[in-house]
């Protein structure tokens, strides 16, 4: 999967940067729309998007994919674990396409398809996919 990370840009600019980078990498145009749940859908590939203050992330793969990014310093109720684990749950839920069910929130305990990265010592980024290759690009 390709993961594009754009920092310090508004959403529109981030999207433009990603599209240009993708076209450069793959030689095709990346086009997507959103379903009623806000999930990005594309005819030609699978996508997942996440953004939090200051950063926008888009992951694309021909397998199902989920991605989530959060600030490491973000407060989270201790009943929910820690924010790193939270990004894993979100990425997992997004890959499944179910959204965060109560079951995932309460019982998710890790999954081999989940990878977590520390971005700049500031963010946790988790990806979840059967696609084992993760190519991260900073734009």
């Amino acid at each position, binding site marked *: 999967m390709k993961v594009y990370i754009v920092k310090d840009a508004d959403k529109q600019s981030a999207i433009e940067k990603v599209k240009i980078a993708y076209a450069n990498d793959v030689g095709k145009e990346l086009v997507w729309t959103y379903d009623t749940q806000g999930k990005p859908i594309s005819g030609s590939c699978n996508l997942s998007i996440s953004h*939090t203050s200051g950063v926008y992330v888009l992951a694309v793969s021909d397998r199902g994919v989920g991605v989530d990014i*959060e600030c490491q310093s*973000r407060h*989270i*109720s201790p*009943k*929910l674990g820690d924010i790193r684990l*939270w990004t894993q749950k*979100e990425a997992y839920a997004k890959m499944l396409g179910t*959204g*965060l*069910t*109560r079951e995932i*929130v309460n019982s998710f305990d890790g999954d081999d398809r989940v990878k977590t990265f520390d971005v700049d010592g500031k963010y946790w980024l988790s990806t979840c996919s059967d696609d084992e290759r993760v190519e991260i690009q900073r734009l």
Partner: protein
Amino acid sequence: MTFEKLVEIIANVMNLDKSTLTMETSFKDDLNADSLDVVEIIMEVENEFGVEISDEEIVNYNTIGDVVRSLDENI
């Protein structure tokens, strides 16, 4: 009563001034709440009100009013 309790919870979770919250306030559009915010709010609501809210119901909670009406129906 329900409304007051609920905005207290929301203001707490999201670090907001509760006087800015109304029945029409949309979690996503007005408060920029993401899934973590929603899960934390629901958790506190379940705790405070002694109810259990299903995943199906949560999907329909767009505004504070939606939650208030749902809680009032259950009590």
